[in-house]
């Protein structure tokens, strides 16, 4: 710490150059913060306490291939399985084809037992039980379309016509549920039995089963036992933990992680060339000064540390500034777009990863100049050789 003023003096020696380098670090880490914020939506999907206690069973052929309802009784009999619930996808649009609601599901009443993170009033649940066409929607979705309990909501299904041929299904909104984040308040849920009775085809088939398990440790054993039920049956299943399922589900659209890492790789590579060049120049210029420090008795190691500290400090300063900016941007966007924004706040996890990346980049770009400073021969440097 007592050397900090030396590091600082070195950094502020060429203010314009340091400023420009700092700016490029800031920009790189704003980008890092924003991309990580998007990426977090994917990597943290389904990582709730509840999710650890849930398994999801879908058709081995893919999410949209139906399974017979009869499987449910067999699943319920598997040792370790508690409650089982079924639901079906029901993609639809509201009013205009542009208003796609991808999170429309036909569910059973015990859906809310399996998803304790979805908070719903008991009175709303009773109304759900009592209303054939009842629907419960997430608070964020309700806000978006200005829906209130009591509203009649016509949904045009993208998959299922009703008996009689109409694709319009009208639901009565009986309740609104709340969850931790707007992202989890996007579901439109209605009664599976109503759906099964009224649809023109596919009666008796299900898109997904959800199983509650008492011990997350047993997840893989139970999943294997469930999948064994349908082996060689023509409707084989694939059972996995809810968190694994969520990631799978999202990445069927796009492998965002890969894209994020590719972009960040390119950005950080450029950043390292730039910062590395600055550091090399800075140390070359200061060769006589480093020689003086050594003359005074500073060890090779302290000279090495001084230069490394300089580059690490530079990157951490710029990086922290960048992440702060990214956090502010996400905050503002969330204020404006709410749950539509596929971004998580820039939180502890992103900061932690960010700081590790900053330290690594700082060390990497400082390494060569620092080694050069360390190896400097005093007599040569002093005589300008």
């Amino acid at each position, binding site marked *: 710490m007592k*050397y900090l*003023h030396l590091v600082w003096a070195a950094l502020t020696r060429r203010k314009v150059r340091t400023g420009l380098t700092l700016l490029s670090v800031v920009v790189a880490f704003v980008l890092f913060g924003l991309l990580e914020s998007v990426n977090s939506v994917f990597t943290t999907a389904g990582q709730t306490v509840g999710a650890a206690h849930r398994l999801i069973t879908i058709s081995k052929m893919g999410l949209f291939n139906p399974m017979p309802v009869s499987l449910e009784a067999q699943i319920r009999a598997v040792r370790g399985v508690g409650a089982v619930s079924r639901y079906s996808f029901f993609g639809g649009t509201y009013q205009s084809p542009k208003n796609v609601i991808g999170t429309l599901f036909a569910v059973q009443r015990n859906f809310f037992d399996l998803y304790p993170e979805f908070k719903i009033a008991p009175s709303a649940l009773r109304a759900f039980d009592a209303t054939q066409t009842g629907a419960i929607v997430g608070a964020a979705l309700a806000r978006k379309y200005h829906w209130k309990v009591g509203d009649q909501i016509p949904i045009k299904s993208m998959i299922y016509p009703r008996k009689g041929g109409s694709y319009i299904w009208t639901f009565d909104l009986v309740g609104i549920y709340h969850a931790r984040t707007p992202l989890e308040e996007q579901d439109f849920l209605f009664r599976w039995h109503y759906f099964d009775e009224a649809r023109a085809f596919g009666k008796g088939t299900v898109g997904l089963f959800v199983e509650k398990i008492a011990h997350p440790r047993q997840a893989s054993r139970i999943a294997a036992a469930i999948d064994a039920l349908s082996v060689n049956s023509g409707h084989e299943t694939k059972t996995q933990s809810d968190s694994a399922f969520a990631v799978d589900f999202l990445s069927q659209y796009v492998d965002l992680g890969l894209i994020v890492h590719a972009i960040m790789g390119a950005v950080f590579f450029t950043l390292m060339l730039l910062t590395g060049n600055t550091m090399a120049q800075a140390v070359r210029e200061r060769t006589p000064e480093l020689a003086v420090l050594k003359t005074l*008795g500073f060890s090779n190691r302290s000279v090495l540390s001084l230069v490394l500290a300089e580059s690490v400090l530079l990157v951490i300063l710029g990086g922290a500034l960048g992440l702060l900016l990214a956090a502010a941007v996400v905050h503002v966007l969330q204020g404006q777009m709410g749950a539509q924004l596929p971004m998580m706040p820039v939180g502890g996890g992103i900061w932690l990863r960010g700081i590790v990346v900053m330290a690594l980049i700082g060390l990497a770009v400082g390494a060569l100049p620092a080694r050069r400073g360390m190896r400097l021969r005093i007599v040569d440097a002093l005589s300008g050789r």
Partner: protein
Amino acid sequence: MSALVEIRSLSKVYQRGRQRIEVLHHINLDVAQGEFVALMGPSGSGKTTLLNLIGGLDSPTEGTLAVAGERIDQLGQGALARWRAAHVGFVFQFYNLLPMLSAQRNVELPLLLTKLKGAERRRNASVALQLVGLADRATHKPGELSGGQQQRVAIARAIVSDPTLLVCDEPTGDLDRQSAEEVLDLLQQLNRAHGKTIVMVTHDPKAAEHAGRILHLDKGTLVESEQAAA
């Protein structure tokens, strides 16, 4: 009584590619505690080389070199660095202050390597600046000081950790007559009033007159001249 600096048959050879330059040939020299020695000689005669060896900035090719009884020719790089920090103060022709640090901070530099606390470092540095007559310039950066003042700051830095030995390489080489006189008077005062042993390289016979003894180096061998009339 044995000398503070004891040099026996000291040689230094620089190897540049295939070329061998023998800069110092079997030099013998004793410098007693409290002496002020001037080292003169034509350019390229090896003065800086000899001074750097005495100051422990470089190691000899042959021969022995002891300071205060310690064989510094046998020390490794790390040990030599620690030895320099404890025993030698350096003054160079071009002052070699760190341009971004105030005079005070420059003088404090050697103390960073000691166990002294921040407050003690500041106090010792202030005392050293007072001694060279620049207490009022403590917050100035080198660029805001004249050459003579910068050299006095460098001298304060050289003495702040109370070294055994001061080595000065053409300390007045870049100064006008008046500033040079001030710097030389200061060195002389450090020698006489504070008992500092000084080895100073200089071109300038007037500067050498401030020393108690003048040595001439010519093509790598040492010739003692008559006692200076200091």
